Every structure is written in C-alpha cells, then in structure tokens.
C-alpha cells in the first residue's frame, strides 16, 4: 500500500471532535480502506458523540449507535443478517473506545469472537473514558492521572493486554496499530477485511484533550509511544505474534511522559521504574 494509491474520497469528514483528535483520524482512514460497502456500529464514546448532531453527520456511510455493552454482539448479528441475504460483501465494523472494549463490552466481544461471524472490531484506545470527562479505564496506563485517579493517587494498575486476551480466543486475525503509522494500520484493516471470521484491531489514538498536549502534536506523541517502546505494532495470525514495524530509533520513555500533562506529576524514580519495565519487556 502506498499513500498515492489510497482512496481520495472522504467518507468521514469534519466531525465535532476536538481539533487534533486521532480517534477521528482513525475512523477516516478505516472507511478509506473499506469504502462505501461498509457499515459501522458505534457504542457510547467520543466518536458517536461527535458524529450525532442530527441532521448533521460526518459519516457518509451507514452507522448505528449501539448500547455500550453490545457493540460486538450487534456486529455479529448484523453480519449474520447480511450473510442470510447473500450480502457477505458488506463489511461490518465495530468502532469502540477503550472503556467500551476492555471494560464494558468485553463480555460481548468474547462471545461474538466465539460465535465466529465475520466482522471487524476496532478498539480505538485513548486510554480513558474521554467522552464523559477523562475517567480511568482498564486500558489507562500505569502512572497516568485521570479525573478518577488524580495525583498523588494516580493510576497504579498496569494496562490490560487486549491483544493477548483476544488471541486467547484463537481469533483468526488480530493486530495492534497506532494512528501515527497510517499505512501499517490501513494494511491491517485490509487484511482483516479479507478474513472470513471475527477480527480485532487495537489502535492507539492519542487524545490532546485527555492526555494534555497541544493538538498539533497528536502524530508526534503516537510516534513517541512506538519509538519509546510503550506501544508495539504487532499482528496475531495463525496462532503466532509478529512485529510489523520496528522503530528505526529508540527514545527514552521520559520524553514521551514529559510531553503530556497526565504524567507530569511523576518523580524521576517513577519514570526510571517505567523505563526499567519497558527495557525488561524488550529483551
């Protein structure tokens, strides 16, 4: 896939999202890959909130807003319906946040993967319940402050490893991605769309409002996450994990943490401890 070959038509444009929102970028790129022949299920989260100002909508493809816990079951059901009607060419896509995936929707996700119907579940991870005012989720990383984990009693639990959770279901295809690496992400969406079964893509989408950085730094922050080893671009296929992108340079995690207000309270010792953990995971 090359930049010049990507669909030029915009199917998601000018939402009510904050300036510099990577989640909005992720939706835009997703629909570019799947085209008009795709339908979207979005539960309560930033994307549904910034997309539903009747009668205006940034979506130029069909989408439905779903109950929080039911994204994956809705995808599975819609997919079964399309199959019955002989329209398996239509891609069914769930687009849920980290809270809607790792906490509230995890049971439905597990059940839907088990059912085996064809759909693509995309978790866009902004590492907190952003839409309701930055509350911690199961995917908020260690050390981050949120409105429910304010400093000094910041988030003290590690981030759930969703990729390993879905991989444990023997899912045909799963991957992690980051909005700062659009080609890597879009190739994964393409790959998922060709699988005849449930697929899962987890994309890290930096959030200027919730993480505390200027809107023009969205892409740079995502790059820092990957280059510092905080986030990895991987794929799970045929029972095996594979790294899809190894950063050309590696940066200390202190740069990534210092760039965001949510980590500003961390002491040098705490930063060193986070660095140590990343180094240990690398070897």
């Amino acid at each position, binding site marked *: 896939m090359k*930049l*010049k070959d*990507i669909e*030029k038509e*915009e199917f*998601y*444009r*000018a*939402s*009510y*999202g904050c*300036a*510099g*929102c*990577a989640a*909005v*970028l992720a939706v*835009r*790129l997703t629909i570019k890959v799947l085209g*008009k*022949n795709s339908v979207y299920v979005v539960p309560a989260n930033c994307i549904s909130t910034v997309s539903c*100002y009747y*009668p*205006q*909508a*940034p*979506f*130029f*493809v*069909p989408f439905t807003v779903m109950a929080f816990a039911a994204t994956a079951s809705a995808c599975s059901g819609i997919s079964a319906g399309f199959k019955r009607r002989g329209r398996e060419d239509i891609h069914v896509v769930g687009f849920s946040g980290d809270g809607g995936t790792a906490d509230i929707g995890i049971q439905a996700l597990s059940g839907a993967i088990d059912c085996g119907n064809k759909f693509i579940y995309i978790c866009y991870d902004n590492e907190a319940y952003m839409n309701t005012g930055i509350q911690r989720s199961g995917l908020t990383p260690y050390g981050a402050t949120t409105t429910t984990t304010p400093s000094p009693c910041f988030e003290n639990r590690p981030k759930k490893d969703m990729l390993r959770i879905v991989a444990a279901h023997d899912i045909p295809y799963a991957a992690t991605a980051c909005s700062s690496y*659009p080609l890597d992400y879009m190739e994964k969406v393409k790959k998922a769309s060709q699988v005849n079964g449930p697929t899962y893509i987890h994309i890290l989408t930096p959030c200027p409002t919730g993480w505390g950085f*200027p*809107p*023009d*730094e*969205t*892409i*740079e922050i995502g790059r820092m996450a990957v280059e510092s080893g905080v986030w990895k671009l991987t794929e799970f296929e045929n029972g095996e994990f594979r790294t899809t992108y190894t950063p050309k340079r590696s940066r200390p995690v202190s740069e990534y943490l210092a760039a965001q207000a949510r980590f500003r309270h961390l002491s040098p010792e705490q930063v060193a401890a986070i660095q140590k953990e990343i180094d240990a995971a690398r070897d």
Partner: protein
Amino acid sequence: MKKEKSIPGPVSKAGTIPTRMGTWSTAKPVLKGKCTFCLFCWVFCPEGAISQDEANRKVTFNFEDCKGCGICVRECPTKAIEMVEVEGGR
C-alpha cells in the same frame, strides 16, 4: 445557519448534511514553501480537509472543514505549510 442540501447516502435517501467545522479555527494553514507532493499532510489531517488537485498535484485546504489543529504544518517534511492567524477568529 445557512440551509444546506443533504448528500444522499448509499442506503438512506435522506442522506447526510455535512458539518462545517471551519468556524472553530483561529488560524489557517497556508502553503508557502516547496511542496514535494509527499501527501503526509493529507493523510494525517483528521478532518479530511486537505485535497490534491489532480492536474497540478497541488494540495489545497478546505477552510469549511479545517479546525486549524496544525497537524499538517508540523508533519510536513519540507516545512512548506505555515499557520496564519485569522483576524478576530472566523
């Protein structure tokens, strides 16, 4: 608000009325330097506000959609785009 015509979608004939978010921005991107047509600005624009002219490959900005986030300015490898303040907002 100006009444806008809806664009029919693939399923619903009622279609969608596009949102116009340009009024949010206090600054707008302007192409000033040398563009190498790499399309980085285009792919990273969250709003889909950048397009490329098919004939001369020039990138153009749609100020009805642009929120002035500045991502295109920051991600342009040749620093060809500059942010220009809009007087009194938009």
